[in-house]
């Protein structure tokens, strides 16, 4: 389906839908409360049956950025091979999105990773825990205000010497 047709079809349902294109990436920009509904429409009515990517970015130091976090969903139709990206913006303190887990079970770990790295909550996720970092870790490492070399957590372990072991 050409992108224009898709946009026209979606605009009937979601009036304030913004779109953009770059190279072969086609993006729909939606408001956070609408995300679930848009994803559901794309899955059920437009045959985008695979969620191949779910990620986020912190736009704290991005030139001319107005919002803090962007969350990107990448959808793929395995029948036609088309891709479309759904993007939404989030700002502190309301870092909550509806979980896509009821639509795709593959969203499970990807949402946990976004939660782990950025602290964005997914409402309705069955098991939202840290996935890559240790449970006791308190920061969100991929946020731009977290330094590359950390805050010394990596050196915070007991030392075992030869005589003790």
């Amino acid at each position, binding site marked *: 389906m050409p992108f224009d047709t898709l946009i026209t079809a979606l605009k009937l349902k979601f009036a304030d839908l913004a779109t953009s294109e770059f190279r072969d990436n086609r993006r729909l920009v939606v408001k956070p409360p609408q995300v679930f509904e848009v994803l559901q429409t794309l899955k059920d009515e437009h045959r985008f*049956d695979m969620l191949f990517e779910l990620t986020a970015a912190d736009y704290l130091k991005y030139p001319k950025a107005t919002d803090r976090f962007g969350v990107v969903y990448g959808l793929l139709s395995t029948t036609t091979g088309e891709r479309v990206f759904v993007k939404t913006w989030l700002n502190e303190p309301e870092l909550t999105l509806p979980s896509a887990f009821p639509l795709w*079970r593959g969203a499970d770990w990807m949402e946990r990773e976004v939660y782990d790295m950025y602290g964005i909550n997914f409402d309705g996720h069955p098991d939202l825990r840290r*996935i890559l970092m240790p449970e006791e870790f308190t920061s969100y490492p991929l946020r731009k205000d977290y330094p590359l070399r950390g805050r010394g957590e990596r050196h915070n372990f007991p030392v075992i010497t030869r005589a003790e072991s």
Partner: protein
Amino acid sequence: MPLEALQTLPEGPEKDYLWTLNFGPQHPATHTTLRLILTLDGETVIKAVPDIGFLHSGFEKLGEDLDFNQYVTIVDRMNYISPIMNEIAWHHVVEKLMGIELTPRCKYIRTILGELARISDHLLAAGAQALDLGAFTAFLYGFQQREVIYDIYETISGQRFHPSYTRVGGLLFDVTEDFIRKVRTFVKEFPKTHADMCRLLNRNRIFLDRTQGIGVLSKELAIDLSCTGPIARASGVVRDLRKDEPYLAYGDLQNAFQVICASEGDCYARYTVRMEEMRESLKIIDAAIENLPAGPVNVDVEGKAVFPEQQAVYRSIESMIQHFELVMPNRQWTPPVEEVYGAIESPNGELGFYIVSDGTGVAYRARTRPPSFIHFATFPYLIEGHQISDVVAVLGSLSIIAAELDR
């Protein structure tokens, strides 16, 4: 037992007979660093909870700190059984961001190297799958050919394991006659090893009994769980980026290869798809090396994306200025202020990068779409109801690479 029933295990006295077994993170069959918490009823696994992150090293954070050429040394270490594929994927996306069209020779060389990487990946994946089930010999046969591929990498770049060979808009060096000779020898000699491995495993009673019908992934589940690559193709999802979204030289070589699919979706199907894909890769290499175009490997220097030749840097002021501009952190490339997602077919599946660019030579955000991460999420669904000894069979068939899993 359906999954919903497993989410709510019986509480109280009814639960008493269940065992909890910790598996990993240091275990011979986990290859690297995976941890599973298995709930057992006798020897039957009724629930598996993977625990990952034992190799989380901050790849994506480093991608925000190093420039497009420097970061290639880091992505190398991501899927470390086919390093050059990561480099090709990374620079494929960077070039997509900047709108660079590669030269034909570079496309062909990258294709050959990528397919060599696919063979070496599948050799280790199939060999290790057999090793986990007790067949050591096939693994040794596979490693013998991996050494030959290492040797080819060493010929082109000087490093046998992590070549760091691609650059924005081209390659580190052009290949030599020696490379072409070695690849031709490999093409000639590899089928023998492949046949040996097939003879050792394909009709091996123990191997068949332990893989057929184990860990079945249905087509619907594969799509629902975002699987790609050999794992999805073994379940009947006919999708291969080399055919569907041709990149590099695959557009020219469409007739040289076929997409390998199976419909069973069990461990044996995944093994078969890998073994057959090696044959197809070999056909691609054969076609590409015989039709290797002449000409430069780097794009035109005028585009200000590639380093000029070293002799030119010493001899002309323009080249020296350009070299300087690409090296200085505050000059470098000027990509559009945009975001782009691009992907290639890596041995494990769709390896994509999502780059957010702020117009400098350093990515503002360098997200990896790691196939291993997504495939490991299928593990709890695959192992349900199987025996504890099948855990290693399923793990081996998924070919999980920890560095790509955790990044």
